[in-house]
């Protein structure tokens, strides 16, 4: 019994640490909570919010179903193309960043610098990227593709880095023993390990990019975004509703397919 009690006393004491951290987090939370107030909730505001919701759930179906070159369907498909190509661009750009940021591949300072650069890249708002690319290509879907590409880098490279840092390097040892060069080790030891995770992450990001289409509208970068914003500004919520329905249906289909593919990639 005494050894047991001794052992109990020997239990690592981190309670004060946990308490302090909890206290700090709670204080931060309470301090931040001061921005929240409900005194502005009023009846007429609620009424308008209700009308907005009402408009959204009573979509203008004519708008959705009309087929012409400028119809919602066309713009949805254009959004799909922008998101797809943007994701491809982002994925390609993210790979070198990810390898340069992985602490198990490159020296510490390099990975630190790359990480910093990545923070800068993902901190610049999409709006600003939109403007930058509009200087290059003019307003339109091309600028949208580039903007989507650049804004995807932040998340893609972070998740890529996670995958790279979990690499099983024992394989490399056995390839060394076969007599492989560094290039061969990367091509046959690392790439096969990463391929499916990278693909799955990229597909996830594609799904997210579809959802960010409304932001592209802010900079005139093509797709469904501009009509969405116009409809919002004009308080035509039934039009917003119909655009959203189109977007939601498309996104749900994509999500369904992408979940299937991702599951297959991960589980083999």
């Amino acid at each position: 019994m005494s050894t047991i009690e001794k052992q109990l006393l020997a239990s690592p004491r981190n309670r004060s640490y946990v308490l302090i951290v909890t206290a700090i987090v709670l204080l931060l939370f309470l301090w931040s909570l001061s921005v929240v107030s409900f005194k502005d909730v009023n009846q007429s505001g609620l009424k308008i919010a209700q009308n907005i919701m009402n408009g959204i759930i009573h979509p203008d179906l004519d708008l959705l179903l009309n087929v012409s070159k400028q119809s919602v369907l066309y713009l949805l498909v254009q959004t799909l193309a922008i998101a797809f190509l943007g994701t491809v661009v982002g994925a390609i750009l993210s790979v070198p960043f990810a390898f340069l940021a992985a602490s198990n591949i490159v020296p510490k300072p390099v990975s630190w610098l790359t990480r910093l650069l990545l923070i800068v890249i993902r901190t610049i708002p999409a709006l600003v990227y939109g403007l930058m690319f509009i200087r290059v290509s003019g307003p339109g879907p091309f600028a949208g593709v580039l903007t989507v590409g650049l804004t995807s880098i932040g998340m893609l490279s972070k998740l890529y880095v996670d995958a790279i840092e979990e690499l099983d390097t024992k394989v490399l040892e056995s390839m060394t023993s076969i007599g492989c060069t560094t290039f061969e080790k990367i091509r046959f030891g690392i790439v096969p390990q990463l391929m499916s995770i990278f693909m799955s992450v990229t597909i996830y990001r594609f799904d997210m990019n579809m959802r960010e289409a409304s932001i592209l509208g802010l900079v005139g970068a093509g797709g469904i975004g501009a009509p969405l914003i116009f409809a919002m500004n004009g308080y035509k919520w039934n039009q917003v509703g119909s655009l959203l329905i189109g977007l939601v249906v498309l996104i749900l289909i994509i999500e369904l397919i992408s979940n299937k593919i991702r599951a297959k990639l991960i589980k083999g």
Partner: protein
Amino acid sequence: GSKNNSSENSPSPSASAPSESAQPAAIDIKELKVSFVPSKDPETIITATDPLKDLLKAQLATEGYNVDKVSIDVGTTYEAVGEALTAGSTDIGFIPGGTYALYDDGADVILTATRAGLSNDSDNAKDWNDNKPTAATAEQANYYRSLFIAGPSKKGQELAAKVNGGEQLTWEDLNSANWAIMSTSSSAGYIYPTLWLQKNFNKSLTDLSHVVTSDSYGTSFARLAAGQADVIVAYADARRDFEPKWTADFGRGQSIWDETNVIGVTQGIYNDTISVSKNDKIMTDEFKTALQNAFIAIAQTEEGKKVISVYSHEGYKVAQSSDYDGERQAQELIKSMKK
């Protein structure tokens, strides 16, 4: 997709110009990029601009230019088109006067839009309230005004009563109200109201204690209706645009004309411009003239009227850079106040 950017193709007399009877050798232009910014609430969300492509091609052809392709983009921010014009990545931009003035290092104004004038054009607020509702007239105007509109809230009514009673508003009156304004680059929603405050009280919009920025005039009116705002600033015919929504969506019992009053009127604001890029090799003086003629002509056809009505334009007038000196001064003033 466009394989070549127009700005890189200097106009060249085409060797195999279609010999249209009495025309001089036509000039070929590969692509013309037109960018729109609807400065007001757009009529429809579907960018019904497709017909404009053919109209523009046809009109330019009569001016002696063969345009292979016209592409049209619609942005929702002024900056996007402004930057594109300065960079030369778009050729023609439909932008407000304020935006033109801000980006005039890279853009040239060629036309000003004209729109239906209103039945009120006084710069005395009381006149607007006495002559309700405001209606459109047959006359064309190349400027519009911005109004300070007081809403149905208690404070709003109080201010309106003062104005209609012929009293002068004091700074304290204005400062005690809740305001909804537009973003800083909006002419009707920020710049001209600031000028007005500057002139009358030597103050700016940012000196007000309770002021919020709206993303759109619709939001401003919704807040006015909800009582979240007592006073908003908006272009003069905004109340006409939101008349149906006021009772339907914003849930008010009475019409917008009964419930809102004008408590201030700004000076005239030049209408939207059609501007072209300076950093664009195809923009020769001749081509600019051709564009001016083409747009004016388009605005006179039935089909053309329909297209430009989407942006509440009804016609175009040739404009000079100096028309916008007032705008430039206003911007200078506001910039200097910000510092």
